[in-house]
């Protein structure tokens, strides 16, 4: 390639900006741009020429949550909304049974870095003795992409040949909805089946049952529900 040819340089710069220059050729141009100010200038010129197209669209007001998320991600850590995460009252609001449990949870979570994005939905699933075991969170972006994040506090005792399965209990509906299998320890991000997210936002309870390995064969819980908790939409 004769990059000294100004006509060719201009064309490559134009295709670079347009996006039709791909793969190895694109990477080569990027490397050359690092050393060649003339080439960088050619790319800038094309960006200026084509920028007018960005003006041909109508204005659309973005939702307030976008700005809130931007703020959360650009605020210095000390002043971030993570404070909410550490606040005892917040955990009491999740309707955990006892203050002692809420306190233990707040201290446990207080030891870790706050999540990058404020959660839009939170649930804490506890056992029959009100010991918290699973923390589920999803930011607004997570929900829009059908994701929920699950973290196990410590290790959930899991017998051999069994699996934990997570269920969503929509308000009023008879049937629990399967959301996926959970590991006995650590973290996992579940991708919800399409269309479930809307149910997620209208439900108020989540539960974990003990199923045969690989999950319920029937699509409904077949084993005992060991953990449950209320879903809080922030």
């Amino acid at each position: 390639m004769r990059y000294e040819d100004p006509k060719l340089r201009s064309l490559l710069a134009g295709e670079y900006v347009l996006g039709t220059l791909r793969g190895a050729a694109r990477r080569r141009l990027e490397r050359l741009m690092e050393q060649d100010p003339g080439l960088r200038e050619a790319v800038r010129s094309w960006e200026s020429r084509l920028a007018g197209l960005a003006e041909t669209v109508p204005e659309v007001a973005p939702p307030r949550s976008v700005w809130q998320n931007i703020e959360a991600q650009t605020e210095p850590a000390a002043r971030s909304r993570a404070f909410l995460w550490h606040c005892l009252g917040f955990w009491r609001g999740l309707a955990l049974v006892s203050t002692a449990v809420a306190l233990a949870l707040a201290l446990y979570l207080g030891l870790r870095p706050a999540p990058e994005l404020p959660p839009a939905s939170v649930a804490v699933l506890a056992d029959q003795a009100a010991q918290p075991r699973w923390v589920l969170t999803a930011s607004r972006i997570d929900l829009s992409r059908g994701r929920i994040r699950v973290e196990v506090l410590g290790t959930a005792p899991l017998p051999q040949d069994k699996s934990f399965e997570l269920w969503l209990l929509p308000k009023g509906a008879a049937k629990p909805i399967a959301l996926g299998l959970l590991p006995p320890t650590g973290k996992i991000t579940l991708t919800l089946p399409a269309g479930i997210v809307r149910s997620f936002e209208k439900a108020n309870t989540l539960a974990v049952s003990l199923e045969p390995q690989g999950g319920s064969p029937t699509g409904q819980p077949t084993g005992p529900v060991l953990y449950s908790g209320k879903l809080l939409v922030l």
Partner: protein
Amino acid sequence: MLAQLARSGDREAFARLYRLTAPKLFGFALRILRRRDLAEEALQEAFVSIWRHAGEFKPEKALPQTWLAAIVRNRALDLLRSRRPEDPLDDDEQMEALPSEFPDPLQKTLASREARALLECLDQLPGKQRQVILLSYFHGLSHAELAQRVAEPLGTVKTWIRRGLESLKRCLEK
């Protein structure tokens, strides 16, 4: 305002910049991504990037609007390209969606001189050349994808892009 932002990490200036520019940039992201949730994500990531890289913006080298739009476009195209392949854009929708004029007369009055000049020059291009340029600008299509979309040979599409860009450049230099 961007320069001030860069120097001082001024959150007031950043908030003001967002208030002034976000609606247009959101509209732009929507045009590229066609889905609100993805456009919100692109806009959000773009502004976080803008905050973090404000120090790199050189006012003598580019207009702020150009820099902002380029960041939003890059984020949007990244998101578009990482989408699941089972979700392709519907062909007919896509053809209609290409803007080559301003949405309304008021927008035209408010638009920059550069934007108006660009649209006039685009207008003078043969239809096919204009089409492939707009398709790649707003949908990030490669030569091969363009060739498939317009059902023409790869070589033809490459020629249209090349000629279209050359004509635009000549026209804008006048």
